[in-house]
């Protein structure tokens, strides 16, 4: 990704499905910063789900080193992982994003994607990562996006904003699901994206 000057500026208020789909289809390993062993925390939900869908999950949390999360040993920091990771998923508040991004930018090789969790957004940190060719997603949950693009989340009455006339296999544990359904802007949630944007601008 050397030609990053030609790269289109990502609109972080409303991601095209293709962008998210491309990320979830290509990354294999995900380091989750702020992963919690407490089973009612959103990070635990996402960690467990992504592991079940076949991602190689690495829990990063200095407070739990020496313990495991669903069989995966905690590491204290990104630099302790000791092998390349495709994506960093940051489960921290917006005010704690920048130091994690800076840590990620010191990795060699660089991660391909930095993902900030639902509710977390730091445009300056995003610009920094994008300037070296890293793809950034903010204020989204990878579990929700995977569930949406595969339509598995439809079990909960959620608008997946996708259609398919194909017969898909019934999802079982450990199965990777196809994310290649037709996207429907017509079933949009433009209103929700707009509300999120107004909220960011106010804060």
């Amino acid at each position, binding site marked *: 990704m050397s030609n990053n000057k030609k790269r289109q500026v990502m609109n972080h208020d409303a991601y095209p499905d293709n962008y998210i789909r491309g990320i979830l289809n290509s990354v294999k390993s995900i380091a989750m910063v702020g992963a919690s062993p407490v*089973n009612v925390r959103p990070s635990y939900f996402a960690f467990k789900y992504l592991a079940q869908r076949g991602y190689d999950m690495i829990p990063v949390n200095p407070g739990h080193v020496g313990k495991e999360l669903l069989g995966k040993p905690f590491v204290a920091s990104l630099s302790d992982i000791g092998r390349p990771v495709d994506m960093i998923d940051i489960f921290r508040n917006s005010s704690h994003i920048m130091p994690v991004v800076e840590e990620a930018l010191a990795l060699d090789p660089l991660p391909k994607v930095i993902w900030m969790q639902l509710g977390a957004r730091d445009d300056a940190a995003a610009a920094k990562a994008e300037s070296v060719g890293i793809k950034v997603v903010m204020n989204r949950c990878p579990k929700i996006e995977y569930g949406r693009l595969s339509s598995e989340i439809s079990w909960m009455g959620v608008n997946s904003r996708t259609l398919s006339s194909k017969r898909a296999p019934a999802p079982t544990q450990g199965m990777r699901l196809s994310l290649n359904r037709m996207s429907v*802007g017509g079933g949009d949630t433009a209103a929700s994206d707009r509300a999120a944007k107004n909220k960011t601008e106010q804060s």
Partner: protein
Amino acid sequence: MSDRLPGFSTLAVHAGAQPDPTTGARATPIYQTTSFVFNDADHAASLFGLQAFGNIYTRIGNPTNAVLEERVAALEGGTAALAVASGHAAQVVVLQQLLQPGDEFIAARKLYGGSINQFTHAFKSFGWNVVWADPDDIASFERAVTPRTKAIFIESIANPAGSITDIEAISTVARKAGMPLIVDNTLASPYLIRPIDHGADIVVHSLTKFLGGHGNSLGGIIVDAGTFDWSTGGKYPMLSEPRPEYHGIRLQETFGNFAFAIACRVLGLRDLGPALSPFNAFMILTGIETLPLRMQRHCDNAKAVAEFLAGHPAVASVSYAGLPSDKYHQLARKYAPKGAGAVFTFSLKGGYDAGVNLVSKLQLFSHLANVGDTRSLVIHPASTTHSQLDDAAKVKSGAGPDVVRLSIGIEDKEDLIADLEQALGA
């Protein structure tokens, strides 16, 4: 995989549905089962803890109902939906998430009579206090706001007179006051009006009416627009605070822009219990597939019938926003350019007795308490749907003693007009 935008009719047929994974069945199967087996103990725990997507028990969710939910969410442009047993159940479940005993909500005075009744009496016994405002006077909503107000409730097209509500103006009041706007979109259906596009935060429907459309199944639905920030000021603890029944989960934090729909499911439907039968969900889904075709025909027929009545010597007045002379015509052009719906009222010069006489003489129109059927329907609201209101409230809600309400079906309009003509004539 381009991000192309399919139209409304495509979504009405396809959204939420796909061939059945096990059998390949193309029509959505009726999953007529109470419960679903777990793979193992961990799977069961994950489902009960809301950690995994899947089915547990039909009071909480069902695959047939889920197709209906996603379809209506897509048609309304919402993030998620929850189907329940009736329109009235939808209203209870929505307000249960928003109000604590002693709280207030503001409701437009022009509403379905059953809703006026539900708000005035049943909800009062829960300690939820309704404060009425006049949809023709936007400032009356602003004046009604107090520190205990938690929501505003309106109908997009109001039952019985088919008046059109200025959703955007009222959503501005709601936004300023920091509370969600709930819109009952039953009489418009998303084919005519999508309230979320005009600032609604929550949409409710009686699916019993135009969405199901055939007068054969009761149902209700709640659509989450994903627009409201529930975390501010601890005003909506069901969404923002740790839930003891789920070991401390905070719903907004966990489910983001569809947290309200999840709250309605796991705190409302699960505990109050008004689940929709999967069979009804199937019937309603089948109805929705033809919604765009039916709704246009309903509106075109209604306009023709309203024009006929407006020119008839026995008729004192017609209240239909599709007529250029109507008080609500400008609002109809703005909010419902494809048609002003198919439920409206008219009054007869001969008053109450003439109304009773008309109803008894009609041969195609059915005299019953429903709207939004393929068949044309007629009723005298003052003695039925609005009978529990006092006389002043009847007039205020558009259901005075001389008023007759029609719900125009999809028959041939010439036959409907001929039936009215013979009944008005003699």
